[in-house]
């Protein structure tokens, strides 16, 4: 079984400002850090001890349908 997105991330990302970059733990259970800039969130995550965080972003809008 391949690793999909573990669960609906909306609960995990609740309270984080819209548009913020987020570093998640490898088990996707914890938010390690968030910041406005990608490079900043990577640095924060590494300072917190997570060398390989999963990077994602909080959507700018609540209703985010994907039509790509």
């Amino acid at each position, binding site marked *: 079984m*391949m690793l*999909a997105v*573990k669960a609906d991330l909306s609960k995990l990302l609740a309270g984080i400002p819209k548009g913020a970059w987020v570093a998640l733990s490898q088990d996707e259970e914890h938010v390690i850090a968030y910041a406005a800039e*990608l*490079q900043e969130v990577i640095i924060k995550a590494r300072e917190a001890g997570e060398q390989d965080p999963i*990077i994602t*972003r909080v959507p700018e809008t609540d209703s985010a349908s994907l039509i*790509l």
Partner: protein
Amino acid sequence: MAVHPLPYSDFVIPASAAFPNGRVASRPFLRIALVNAGLRLSCYALVDSGADYCAFPRSFMQPVGLDALTSPIDQTTGVSTASVPTHFANVSIDLQGLVEFPVYAGFTVGLEQMGLGLLGQVGFFDRFNISFSKKVCYIEIPDPHP
């Protein structure tokens, strides 16, 4: 050859004028990592047969040592965006430790707001046999040592 099932992930979408009760969107997302020059960036990517190429936010270039200033540019477009410049560069994708493969991928501001990648035709669908069943995507990956 091993077939790896990828269950779709369900995303709860809040109510909108078009969907006053909200809805659940099922999407074939998986975890990958971009790898280049000993650097690595883990992220999510959507298996997207409608994408011509594999593509990622442009800001993903720097953490894996790619230089937007020296990368060739093509114009790309999606449903909701006007044509935007996309930088192309060689990078590797680590598919959860199962296989690592090189792709000529695009990096575009058009994906910045979503913060995720697309696994498209060139580099992904032309490398692996991909099939879809209801809410499951199946990816055939050759044995590393047949």
